[in-house]
């Protein structure tokens, strides 16, 4: 018999346990899991509302290991990154993080992510969608090595007002000098950790990245140290509330990547999304530059805007009307913001609505009240993004709460 004919493993279906699964499962009283990029990610552990308040009042742990992660290393790493993203990477010093987007040749957004500059010749890129091929295409002909490290790095977000105090209790003296978007290499429980002062909540917070084999030791040390300061493990629902307040956009929710859209008219450029501030022309050629230069000179046909809505019912999936009759747009993310006590949302509006025409805009909200549906028309006000950012987000050295 041919000895090579032994059964090869079949790939498992569905969501796999992520590096912190045991710890999260132990506290996941609702047994609520979502599939995030092939990993089981908690939706809600007990109550989304109380988890959300822990983000705004104490400190929280959220597993970010399922994010797509790439290492770009070599003499041309800076040139490759600068050719890919719309910001000027040459200005990003080693030890700093920046929020970046990258576009296709038409100037439409492919994805957004956080770019960690580890050294002169090494970057890490964290983002929502698989980008290995995209980066490799851009790196063609450059002296650089591009590796997907999604499964080689574990990480969690440690966010909230008491996070710095907890790290202080752990004797991490590096945090005293860390400004927002700074990176440091530290040790927790004797394990190597890359820590950055970054996050998705508009408040004080950090992200910690380590080898999967060290993941539980680091998590346990932080979780134990956080007990006196109200640490709580949170799920996606709570983070989503903080995310909307903090003014961050989510691909596939607020806009769609130009690499995944089926309908050609769904792709969006940075000026439409409101990310024009991430686009610079003061650097050599990069992907989409020519198209973006042209787009920068014309008024966008539609815009994603931040809106506030009268009364307190969140405008999920609502359509937006002008004079209560003409349909002019739709809501993507909506929330009754418990911290700002405002009814907030993001909406796509066709020009001139939301720009030249800001009055007499309405959302149509459907409410189900004990089976019966009610329709409410509520006023829309165009406001600034973000809805929430706390001054302690940037204070250095960081505050205790």
């Amino acid at each position, binding site marked *: 018999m041919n000895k090579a004919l032994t059964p090869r493993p079949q790939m498992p279906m569905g969501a796999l346990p992520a590096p912190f699964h045991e710890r999260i499962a132990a506290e996941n009283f609702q047994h609520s899991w979502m599939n995030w990029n092939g990993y089981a990610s908690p939706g809600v552990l007990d*109550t989304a509302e*109380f988890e959300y*308040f822990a983000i705004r009042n104490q400190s929280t742990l959220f597993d970010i290991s399922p994010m797509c992660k790439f290492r770009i290393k070599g003499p041309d790493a800076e040139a490759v990154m600068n050719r890919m993203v719309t910001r000027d990477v040459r200005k990003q010093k080693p030890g700093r993080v920046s929020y970046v987007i990258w576009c296709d040749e038409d100037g439409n957004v492919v994805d957004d992510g956080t770019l960690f500059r580890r050294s002169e010749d090494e970057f890490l890129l964290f983002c929502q969608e698989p980008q290995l091929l995209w980066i490799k295409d851009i790196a063609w002909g450059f002296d650089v090595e591009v590796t997907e490290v999604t499964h080689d790095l574990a990480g969690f977000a440690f966010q909230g*007002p008491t996070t710095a105090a907890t790290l202080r209790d752990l004797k991490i003296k590096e945090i005293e000098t860390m400004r927002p978007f700074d990176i440091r290499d530290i040790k927790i429980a004797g394990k190597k950790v890359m820590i950055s002062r970054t996050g998705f909540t508009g408040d004080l917070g950090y992200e910690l990245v380590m080898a999967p084999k060290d993941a539980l030791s680091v998590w346990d040390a932080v979780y134990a140290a956080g007990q*006196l300061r*109200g640490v709580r493990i949170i799920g996606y629902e709570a983070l989503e509330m903080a995310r909307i307040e903090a003014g961050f956009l989510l691909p596939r929710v607020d806009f769609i990547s130009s690499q995944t859209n089926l309908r050609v008219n769904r792709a969006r450029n940075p000026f439409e999304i409101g990310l024009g501030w991430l686009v610079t022309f003061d650097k050599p050629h990069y992907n989409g530059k020519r198209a973006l230069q042209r787009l920068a000179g014309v008024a966008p046909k539609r815009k994603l805007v931040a809106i506030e809505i009268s*009364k*307190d019912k969140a405008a999920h999936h609502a359509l937006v009307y002008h004079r209560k009759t003409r349909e002019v747009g739709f809501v993507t993310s909506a929330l009754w913001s418990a911290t*700002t006590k405002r009814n907030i949302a993001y909406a796509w509006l066709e020009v001139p609505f939301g720009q030249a025409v800001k009055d007499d805009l309405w959302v149509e909200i459907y409410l189900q009240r004990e089976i019966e549906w009610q329709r409410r028309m509520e006023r829309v006000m165009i406001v600034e993004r973000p809805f929430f950012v706390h001054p302690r987000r940037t204070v250095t050295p960081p505050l205790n709460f």
Partner: protein
Amino acid sequence: MKYDAIIVGAGHNGLTTAGFLARAGLKTLVIEKNDYVGGAAVSRELQPGWTYSNCSYVCSLLRPEIIRALELPKYGLQVIPYESGATFDSKGNYFNYSSDHDALRRELIRNNPEDADGYERYARAVMRQCKFIKPLLMRTAPDPTSFNPRDISELLYIGKRFYDLGEREMAETVRFWTMSIAEFLDQYIKSDLVKVHLAGSGIIGTGLGPYSPGTAYVLLHHYMGEVDGSIGAWGFSRGGMGSITKAMALSFQDAGGEIRTGSGLDQFIVKNGRVVGVALENGDEFYADTVVSGMDVRRTFIEHTEQKELPEDFVKGVKRYRFRGSSGKLNIALDGMPTLPAAPKDARFLKGDLHFLDGMEELERAYDDWKEGRWSASPYVDFLIPTQIDPTMAPPGKHYATIFVQYAPYELANGTWDDANREAFAKTVIDKISRHSPDFKDLIVHKEVRSPADIEREVGLTEGNIFQGELTFDQLLFNRPVPGYAQYRSPIKGLYMCGSSSHPGGGVMGAPGANAAREVLLDLGKKIDLGAAA
């Protein structure tokens, strides 16, 4: 100095009125007798490192419309809900009220298999009453004797809502507004422990016992609050209740308002039946055609207004209006987290409101002591340790306990509220807690003891009544505080009331303050701006 409007008292209602008036463009001054703002919503550091919520201690009733319109979150207000609570009996059992529906059901069944369903019926009955009354909070109560079109339309509004309930619910509503909390609960709940846990909200702050008619309404008054649409939920104001009034003061000052602390009111200055200003105790005088009093109705009209300026029947009404202080308060700095051996270690419900009672009898006996002029030998306590949730009020690992005590009389049969009696009162409370938490006593670093007399002296609430007057049916709606004067106006032209003595009453709600602002602005031909909340 001349202003458009002067507000007397920087409590939460005074500051709410002030905020709306300043935002409407009025040059507004707030005067306050203490060196700090806050009234009964105040946070002070009496022991270095610890911040107390010296008077009121939890937040639910503050109207979300007011928070949004005055942009209080922008000025630092953050309300954090808490999840649960418990009542411990002397036999080592407890009932844990949980906001988690499944946990609550299981716990009710553990105490009595029928109570899970009984509780659902009870909760529905209370929620129906909340739904009926909630829209009335932010509206001025109509005068039933008036032919003013607005009064008639308001009466019709209430009448229609009432009629729409249907015959059975109308009867239920009338019963609810007049019956006792104990009898109301008897209809639904079997377990004594569950019953007495729920009954607490019916007697807090009031000179009535659980079997006194009218206490069902007091419970409703505590239930009609909300935290982010979660009706009946309670929360902590981050940094203590003083964060509410601090945010209100900042919002007011940002809108151009001015606050003067450190000297209280001597007299309202009245000329030809019209208020023209205020004279302070320090001799300062300030002038305005509109003056709004945040003080309770007795202090406003008996202590600070010349009687000759007021009609006889009004004065009679004010004198008849009942206060009856019935509560005390202990604020305690703790060196660590006290243990409660009857509860599992780190039980989540220890983060909520804790009580120690065996049943309704004990509560009624506690009330009997009060009637005799004694503080309760075995008092009802509302005991919370907010520092388990709020990281800002004590150093990590240390804690702050707020202990509301029912009942404590304003006038003691055995003398006055001197240091000896205050210490004996504190000992009664601490001993009771110590029976359930043996290490509690040894963890005490500092304590503040507040009798009804202290509350009257420091905060200015007559007889120490936390609601600025009892919340009984005879003193609600168009009868609050005096029939014919329930619309925030007084017999003196230009002099208004905005405190909890007026509709809809006490609690850190802000509704009287907002309603008063609306009436003041209406008289000036302006409109209150509730912004996106309206």
